[in-house]
């Protein structure tokens, strides 16, 4: 393990292009150990692309990405495998495997990385499902039989299957009702506290940002505009940031 300087993710001078379109141009971002960092930005600023680049689904044109202090470009395939084991990812619609039951979905990462008796695996899957607030009988169902919110929770259970140190969430509360979203936020806070998670969230949800985030990173004009606490960011002098945190939709949240 290399030096981490307290940073779980260290992105430096990142340039990402999709086709002819430059998404990020010299973006740098640090995510510190044990913090929940929310990434916000207008639609199309490349929040999801940033997430996918960090977890290695998109290859950047230039720039370095260090996860757990290890440069993703210099890793052997075995080390990369090990880094991936320490990360959990929740995709936007859960991305559950449609041909497997929910319980089998949660067991998949365990099965892939460790040799455990079937009974223990099933019990751990039941534990994770109960942790994300799903009933035990949900485990036998198939993803197509679940509602959107339940799929999201099941996806989170799968992301948590291996007790990741670093959790990536792509719009975790989008499409949930406000009560469900608030419960999700509480769940996240509790899990983060008890499992000492570092969390990277891509979100539009102001409630999530206010409730759970330690740090907020604002993407704008292909770069990181600012990364700081809620107070620092909301007082930052930029029209988009001012509009975002002090616009009509944020009023209800701010007392």
């Amino acid at each position, binding site marked *: 393990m290399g030096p981490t300087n307290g940073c779980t993710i260290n992105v430096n001078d990142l340039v990402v292009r999709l086709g002819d379109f430059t998404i990020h141009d010299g973006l740098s971002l640090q995510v510190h150990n044990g913090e929940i960092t929310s990434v916000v930005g207008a639609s199309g600023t490349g929040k999801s692309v940033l997430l996918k680049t960090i977890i290695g689904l998109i290859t950047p044109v230039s720039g370095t990405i260090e996860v757990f202090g290890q440069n993703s470009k210099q890793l052997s395939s075995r080390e990369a495998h090990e880094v991936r084991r320490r990360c959990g990812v929740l995709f936007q619609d859960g991305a559950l495997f449609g041909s497997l039951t929910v319980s089998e979905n949660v067991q998949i990462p365990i099965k892939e990385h*460790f*040799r*455990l008796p079937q009974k223990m695996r*099933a019990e751990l899957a039941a534990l994770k499902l109960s942790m994300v607030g799903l009933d035990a009988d949900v*485990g036998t169902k198939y993803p197509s039989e679940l509602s959107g919110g339940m799929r999201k929770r099941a996806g989170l259970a799968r992301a948590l299957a291996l007790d990741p140190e670093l959790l990536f969430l792509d719009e975790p509360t989008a499409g949930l009702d406000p009560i469900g979203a608030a419960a999700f936020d509480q769940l996240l806070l509790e899990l983060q506290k008890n499992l000492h998670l570092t969390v990277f969230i891509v979100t539009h949800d102001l409630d999530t940002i206010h409730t759970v985030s330690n740090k907020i990173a604002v993407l704008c004009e292909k770069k990181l505009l600012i990364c700081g606490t809620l107070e620092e960011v909301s007082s930052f002098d930029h029209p988009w940031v001012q509009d975002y945190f002090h616009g009509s939709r944020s009023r209800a949240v701010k007392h």
Partner: protein
Amino acid sequence: MKNPKGWLEVGRADNTMRISAGGFWTIDQVSELQPAVDGLVVDGAADTEVDFHRIERMDTAGAYLAAQLLDRCDDSSACQVYSNQTVDSILETVRRYKTSAVSRPPALNTFYELIGRIGKATLDALDLAACFVVFIGAITRHLIITVARPARFRFSHTMTQIELSGFNAIPIISLISFLIGIVIAYQGALQLGKLGAEIYTIDLLAVTILREMGILLAAIVIAGRSGSTFAAEIGTMKINEEIDAMFTIGMNPMEVLVLPRVIGLIISLPILTLIANLFGVIGGGLMVWLVMDVSPPMFINQFINSLSPWTFWVGIIKAPVFAAVIAVIGCYEGMQVSGSAESLGTHTTRAVVESIFLIIVFDALFSIFFGVIGI
């Protein structure tokens, strides 16, 4: 990265049972720790002391095991637990969420299960037949509506379908029938030659290609090519809720998706059959020229003589029927897709298998029919 070991020790002092654990209680260790926990026998009468404070690291899997251990100790009269901060927070979380209810599909008696499966399959088959009849009815209804109000007919959609499933299939169908023509002519010349009836190779070729092979080849290629495409296209739209969206916009999927495909294929397949016939005869003619030294003018002469008035039409008449079978089954299976990628795969396969099967069945029925009316 291999974690150091985790351990569990059981000792006894006076009337107290001492259980101490330490090291790494993590997911890579639990399979080794599990037997020790399972094998733990807690003496109901004795006091129990559980000491977790030498555990260096614990994850949820380890905590789950520790929680199992504590559950066993709860049976004893007095249980004292010592632990440290690392263990406390995670153990507390896991104990809160630990459920005894492990989701497991209900176990069934194999005999009843077998009977149940047969019953379910039978009901499913009946259901399928009923749904299929309804689907055919709906298509027919929309066909009649279209005839009554031609303005609603999706002309450009139909043209696109003719291009995609008809025009684009010309090269492959030409090539396959050309090759089959060669094969038939060669085998015919070889076998009939033994009887000294080589010249009847041309009659054989004419009847085989025009009555059966041309249409069958075209229909089977189209069933594999377009039947699967229809099912996959419509199925994907179903999964993405595009079909539902169409309904709410006021477009009828029957009218927009199904009819253009059915009509497009009914127009395309006879033309493709014509092309298959042409290339089959060219291939056969070429082979006859090479093997039997029959020049093209002679071939054409003998070929025309060998035709009865119906030979050509018997093949062509089947084409629209086969086209309707392929298109209707492809669209029907597409509409049956629900939810997962697996379902899409199953229905695409079924579209191809069912349509090829029905093509062969219909071909046999046509043979009987033509036999009875004597053409």
